[in-house]
């Protein structure tokens, strides 16, 4: 941990992508950091949590991503250099605050980190591609490929924010955020020892988004974006790599890519160059900016091409942009993307190898009449022959037990994540199974360790959506059907987004049984503290919140008292009003 604070410019140390973002922010002299923990962004907050005091940075775990961003906006309005970090779904929560922030712009430079998780390694609910936010809000978005770029792009993002008075997003993905590699250190900004000297200076013209001023603000925003586009055109982070051994001087095909996909492209070209003619000589345009795109640079790149291959994970945002730009300069250009690159699941080197080999071979045939090389064929064959074993928790058994290697006739059993031995949730499961007829009760799921209730042999989960939603959806089902329903919500989720749903349930009068699992930590994401955690002095008591929301049927129970717990479940399930059981027993991994 102390290595991240080395002030030795030029020295190389191993950093995780997320740690490199922290280092970049420290080199720029960040003052204020807020976050709600979420994998794959969590190490950003966790690292600041450990070092913030030492380096004179204000850091907080906020109760959700929207308030984290709002805190950041307040700090920026007061002139501080601000960083806010979240995972993709957190961005959705924060979106309401983000739109107007683009209109007001920043005072202190502000960078927002958003981490996507293609393949849903650490995410339920959806395989979100957060790039949409750029098109919706006009926020500039940068996409680093590796830890060095994580650091460099974070610094650049602060500089762009400072220059254009606009927040900037760094969008990472799991394989960038959780990639480690040597990173060359720059100079650390001096630590602050006394206060920030910040002040909120009244400026309603800048900070108040009231009509009709709000429409002027939109015009100002669009003007800013035009200027940033010019900056993007000149920026070195949008770069063309002309690789050696081009099969002819006037290459008529090329590749456009960004983020992690770029590394797989370079890996492939290394492979193809070292083994044969062909794809190794393809020119590659690597885009560091996703928004605003350097449109002229892209047009220049594609104007003489016959074909271009766009390599990107998930939805074809870049591909569509390239198609649009091609209309201006090269309307015959064939833009190939999702024909060869899957839209579901993360990319892997072998998928990109296969796609480029196919793309380049077509060209070889067309140009010189040569048949495709055997090496390319064998690579493609290899990539297609076998299926990657699937480790995720979604889906049922049929595709899981399939053998990854064709020749192995063996069924390889799937190993799903499990609740830890000794987890207090086991006591919840056993009480539920004793108290009710499982077939006659609906079980509402939530985001947290207890989403593992959906796995065999527990099987206590009939729906699962976003944070805070188990209670909101339970209310709707109750109103629609009157069926019996038990819904689970963790303490961190309850603070995050469960409270409005509970109030709605009481206010609009329905009677689900809500079980709040108070394990006193944000367990699934890495045991970060929340407002009721034991390390928080005078922490907020969930029991008092629930009572204040008007819940009459309320009991706090240590689940070790199974008899009382079972009896309460039975009793509360028959109540006509909302009922809540707070299950109080800490996660086994937290210090009491």
């Amino acid at each position: 941990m102390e290595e991240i604070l080395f002030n030795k410019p030029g020295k190389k140390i191993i950093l995780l992508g997320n740690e490199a973002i922290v280092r970049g922010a420290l080199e720029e002299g960040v003052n204020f950091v807020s976050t709600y923990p979420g994998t794959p962004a969590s190490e950003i907050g966790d690292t600041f949590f450990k070092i913030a005091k030492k380096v004179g940075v204000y850091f907080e775990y906020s109760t959700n991503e929207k308030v984290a961003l709002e805190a950041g906006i307040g700090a920026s309005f007061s002139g501080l250099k601000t960083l806010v970090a979240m995972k993709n779904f957190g961005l959705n929560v924060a979106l309401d605050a983000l739109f107007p922030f683009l209109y007001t712009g920043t005072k202190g430079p502000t960078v927002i980190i958003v981490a996507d998780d293609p393949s849903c390694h650490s995410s339920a609910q959806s395989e979100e591609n957060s790039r949409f936010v750029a098109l919706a809000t006009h926020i500039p978005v940068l996409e680093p490929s590796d830890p060095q770029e994580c650091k460099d792009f974070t610094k650049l993002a602060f500089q762009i924010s400072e220059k254009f008075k606009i927040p900037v997003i760094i969008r990472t993905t799991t394989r960038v955020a959780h990639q480690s590699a040597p990173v060359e250190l720059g100079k650390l900004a001096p630590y602050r020892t006394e206060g920030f000297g910040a002040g909120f200076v009244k400026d309603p013209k800048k900070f108040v988004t009231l009509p009709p001023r709000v429409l002027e603000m939109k015009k100002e925003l669009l003007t800013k974006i035009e200027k940033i586009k010019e900056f993007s055109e000149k920026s070195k982070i949008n770069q063309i790599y002309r690789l050696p051994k081009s099969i002819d001087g006037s290459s008529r095909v090329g590749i456009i890519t960004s983020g992690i996909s770029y590394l797989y492209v370079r890996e492939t070209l290394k492979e193809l160059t070292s083994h044969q003619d062909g794809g190794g000589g393809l020119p590659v345009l690597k885009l560091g900016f996703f928004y605003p795109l350097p449109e002229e640079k892209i047009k220049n790149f594609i104007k003489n091409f016959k074909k271009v291959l766009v390599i990107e994970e998930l939805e074809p945002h870049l591909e569509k942009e390239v198609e649009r730009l091609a209309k201006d300069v090269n309307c015959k250009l064939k833009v190939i993307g999702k024909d060869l690159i899957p839209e579901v699941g993360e990319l892997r080197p072998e998928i990109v190898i296969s796609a480029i080999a196919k793309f380049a071979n077509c060209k070889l045939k067309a140009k010189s009449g040569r048949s495709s090389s055997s090496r390319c064929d064998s690579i493609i064959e290899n990539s297609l022959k076998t299926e990657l074993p699937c480790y995720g928790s979604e889906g049922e058994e049929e595709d899981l037990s399939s053998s990854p290697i064709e020749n192995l006739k063996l069924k390889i059993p799937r190993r799903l994540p499990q609740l830890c031995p000794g987890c207090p949730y086991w006591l919840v499961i056993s009480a539920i199974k004793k108290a009710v007829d499982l077939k006659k009760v609906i079980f509402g799921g939530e985001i947290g360790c207890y989403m593992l209730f959906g796995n065999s042999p527990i099987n206590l989960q009939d729906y699962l959506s976003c944070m805070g939603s188990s209670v909101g959806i339970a209310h709707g089902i109750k109103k629609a059907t009157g069926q019996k329903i038990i819904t689970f919500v963790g303490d961190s989720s309850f603070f995050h987004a469960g409270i409005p749903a509970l109030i709605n349930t009481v206010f609009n009068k329905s009677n689900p049984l809500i079980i709040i699992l108070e394990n006193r930590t944000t367990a699934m994401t890495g045991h970060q503290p929340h407002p009721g955690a034991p390390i928080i002095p005078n922490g907020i008591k969930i029991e008092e919140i629930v009572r204040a929301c008007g819940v009459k049927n309320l009991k706090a129970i240590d689940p070790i008292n199974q008899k009382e717990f079972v009896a309460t479940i039975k009793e509360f399930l028959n109540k006509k009003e909302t009922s809540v059981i707070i299950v109080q027993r800490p996660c086994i991994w937290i210090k009491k």
Partner: protein
Amino acid sequence: MDKKVNQFNTLIVGTGGQGQITLLQILTEAALIEGYDVKTSELHGLSQRGGSVEVHIRFGKKIFSPLIPQGQADLIIGLEMQECLKACYYANPKTNFLINKYIVPIPLEKILPEKEILDNLKKVSKNIFLIPAAEICQEKLGTSVVAGVYLISLSSFKNLIPIKPTSLFEAIKKIIPEKYLELNLKTFKLASDSEAVK
């Protein structure tokens, strides 16, 4: 293995909680000490709760992808036997398998017999080293938690990885917290004395 390799791909597989990320950090530091470029990939969060966990460590002259391409693992370290079968996706006939003789049952599933696992692995590669690392560490050091450190140390002593034992030793000292360092250095020593090296 004094000559610097162009590229070397190591995959470590096992179940959540077997210390893959610590092993990854040790090998990454060791590769940096050896003067290599290095890239790794790991997973956090949900995937760690006792599920299958694989981590990738790639080093050499210049490394781009943090993930090992299919079929290109040079060394697969298996901390659990059944997980090695899944790792075959990354293996080729030249891949060395260094395997902990250790099985963690999967709930609701039949445990695959050791022989069946080995027979199937042999169809992919003949280079299989089955080591009772958990048992050795339990017997000599009183805990099997260091089985992974034992195996990576062994891989260096047996020349299964182009990293010198001295570099690995330095990396262990750098990565392992003070409190557990003595135990881990003893593990390193135990691997150097082991019969498997002779």
